[in-house]
């Protein structure tokens, strides 16, 4: 079974994100970029499936500017076999990404797409779901455990109330949550080996998709600073404040 794993290049989780001075996005110039941490988990899961003999080939896909190659290389160093870069300067939104992934799935015919549940830059949490809908495949989102047997993927999902187990008939889309696994780091010899693994570069047009954004960004602002708290003398005062000032009860 082939596995397709999309990997996104995002601002490194260690970096304190700053809004650009024009208020239209976040500062990325001179900022350390890395693979979206949820995508690392997805790659790790794919590599484990390959090590178990369940998967035969892992294809890492990234979309965006040429530098996304670096993100693919990291996936290759972790154990993916080859990469596909869909190169574009256009700002990519989930629907466009999902459509391009669908086109790649049609072409590559993987048995499963494993992806991060969301990207830490825009926290959209949408691409996996959209892709499953476009493909008409079952989906197991927020996976914290994945077992494959007899053409079925059993996924334990992290939901608000606890855990839910679903059985999906393959092919399927699975999105990884934080606890699915602990991703390995790329060892130095594997980083060197990854340099020799192939990366194919294509354009959105090759997939017959127009990636132009459908949503318009009006402005980007920092979250409001938390105000200092106040101490209340007793429960009665608390209730009064909640009712009269905060107006939440």
């Amino acid at each position: 079974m082939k596995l397709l794993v999309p990997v996104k290049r995002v601002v490194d989780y260690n970096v304190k994100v700053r809004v650009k001075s024009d208020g239209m996005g976040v500062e990325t110039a001179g900022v350390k970029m890395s693979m979206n941490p949820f995508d690392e988990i997805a790659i790790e899961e794919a590599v484990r499936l390959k090590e178990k003999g369940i998967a035969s080939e892992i294809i890492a896909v990234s979309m965006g500017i040429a530098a996304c190659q670096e993100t693919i290389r990291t996936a290759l160093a972790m154990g993916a076999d080859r990469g596909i870069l869909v190169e574009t300067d256009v700002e990519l939104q989930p629907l466009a990404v999902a459509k391009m992934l669908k086109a790649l799935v049609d072409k590559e015919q993987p048995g499963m797409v494993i992806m991060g549940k969301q990207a830490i830059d825009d926290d959209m949490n949408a691409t996996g779901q959209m892709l499953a809908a476009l493909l008409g495949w079952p989906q197991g989102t927020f996976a914290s455990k994945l077992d494959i047997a007899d053409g079925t993927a059993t996924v334990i999902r992290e939901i608000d109330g606890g855990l839910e187990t679903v059985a999906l008939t393959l092919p399927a889309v699975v999105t990884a949550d934080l606890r699915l696994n602990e991703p390995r780091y790329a060892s130095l010899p594997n980083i060197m080996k990854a340099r020799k693994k192939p990366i194919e570069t294509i354009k959105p047009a090759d997939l017959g998709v127009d990636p132009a954004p459908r949503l318009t960004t009006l402005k980007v602002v920092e979250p409001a600073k938390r105000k200092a708290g106040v101490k209340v003398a007793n429960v009665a005062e608390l209730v009064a404040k909640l009712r009269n000032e905060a107006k939440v009860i």
Partner: protein
Amino acid sequence: MTILDRPTLDFLLYDWLGGEALLTRPAFAEHNRESVASMLDTAARLAETHFLPCFKKSDREEPSQNEHGAHVIPEIRTAIAAYAQAGFAAAPFPAAIGGLGLPNLIHTAATAFFMGANVPVASYSMLTVGNAGLIAHFGTQAQIETFVTPALEGRWTGTMCLSEPQAGSSLADIVTKAIPEGEDGLGVRYRLFGNKMWISGGDHDAADNIVHLVLAKIPGPDGKLIAGSKGISIFIVPKLMPDGSRNDVTLAGLNHKMGFRGTTNCLLNFGERDGAIGWRVGEIGQGLPIMFQMMNEARIGVGLGATMMGYRGFQLALDYARTRPQGRRTGTRDVSSKQIPIIEHADVKRMLLACKSYTEGALALILYCAKLVDESKTADTAQARAEADAVLGLLTPVAKTWPSEYALAANDIAIQVHGGYGYTRDFDVEQLYRDNRLNPIHEGTTGIQGLDLLGRKILRDGGKILAQFATRVAATIKAAKDDFPAEANALQAAMDAIAATVHALASVNDEAEMLANATNFLSAFGHTVLGFIWLDLALCISQGDHGAHFAAGKHAACRYFYSFEMPKIAAWLAPVIACDNLTTRMQDEWF
């Protein structure tokens, strides 16, 4: 908080030091900027997951001694293994022995992350890489297969056994002796007898075996040890023999240190029974020259460790200063107004600027020297290789000492920025200070480095290498004339003062008087070198586009260094250039 700011590191490696051109050299052509970036990512991650979390624990739970030897916290075994398994131990070695041929510059940059996380725990691996490097360079094929391979796989660690209770700075006075005992597959075999003091990583239970590299003297035909360093040879002495049996090496005791407690520090007895078995590396009498070939890199390693401890203290102080409200802007009369974060006080900014200029300057210096190591091996022409090697020799005492003194000063300041909290063990800055306090002492004290710089590296060859270095500095001064005229003039003045001092000293006949103020000279020369580094950085940053805050920060650090630090040079040199003999004439009784 990141261990090491990547934009700063990338700026130093690529914009300033031309790392990309280095990576195109035939010796390094298998690497490129992208693969190096991944390696640094892995270094950062490993440092965060395996080294940083046990920083405090490795101090609090000091090594102890039981019937098996020295016991350390289990995290250290995991860290040593993870470092090697990721390929960092082998990376600088040639492919023929399982390495990746990584440039020294890049390996040093990767090492910075481990140092920034936890120098004492990282030390086991650093010592091991140095030990394996020596055997790989000077040992026989059999010695390499037996002792280097398991070290690079993270199963064994290595030590350097030079010091003895009666011989620290003066290694010529060691008395450990090696009695020849024929030859076997691993080379000429000896039995060693003697005590080695201060041995870092000398015993522990974090690896399966320990390979000691031991300096000892082979008795002459009269049975006596040859006096002086000429008599010293170097030997491989494993704790366990290749067949797993015990060698005659005993842990006599652990030293209880002020800091650096993650690394065990041992008094080892060699040959309590019938002699510890060892194999000679290299020729008889070549012990010190062989050791000193590795010393440049070891000393740069000390400088890097010192730098990164200072750097981490700086980052912690910065974080703290941004979040600690205390006092109001000077001149504010409204006492009911909100307190401001201390980073807004001029004096706190002074302290943080000092930390920034010391630690980022030290990092630049270390990487500059690390690149010289690569240049000395792979530059295009023999002349360029020789020049790099000479300048590296000149700068090595500075690379060892300047960070040991000034990154330590940054650790001191970091405590000060934390106020009373910095003095408690609830914060990390006091430990960083204690850990870093070792660095002016080992691998040659500051005093010994001063003698090395002034005596061996400058006066002995009549200042020829100094002149080669001056050519590099002159190029920077020339380039800076228009945009940084004040700094260019100040650096020129410092170089002139250094040259005048060397000239004055050259005519002093008594060697003891000539070198009496060598430490002062080292202080002045160290600051001059850092002045050169900062001006060169300021020039380089002006040429690229690195974001306004980034560039402004580096320029401010350069300005700080020139405004607050460079004036010290004249004061340090004053007694040196006057050949002030107060210290040689001072008498014991007068104290």
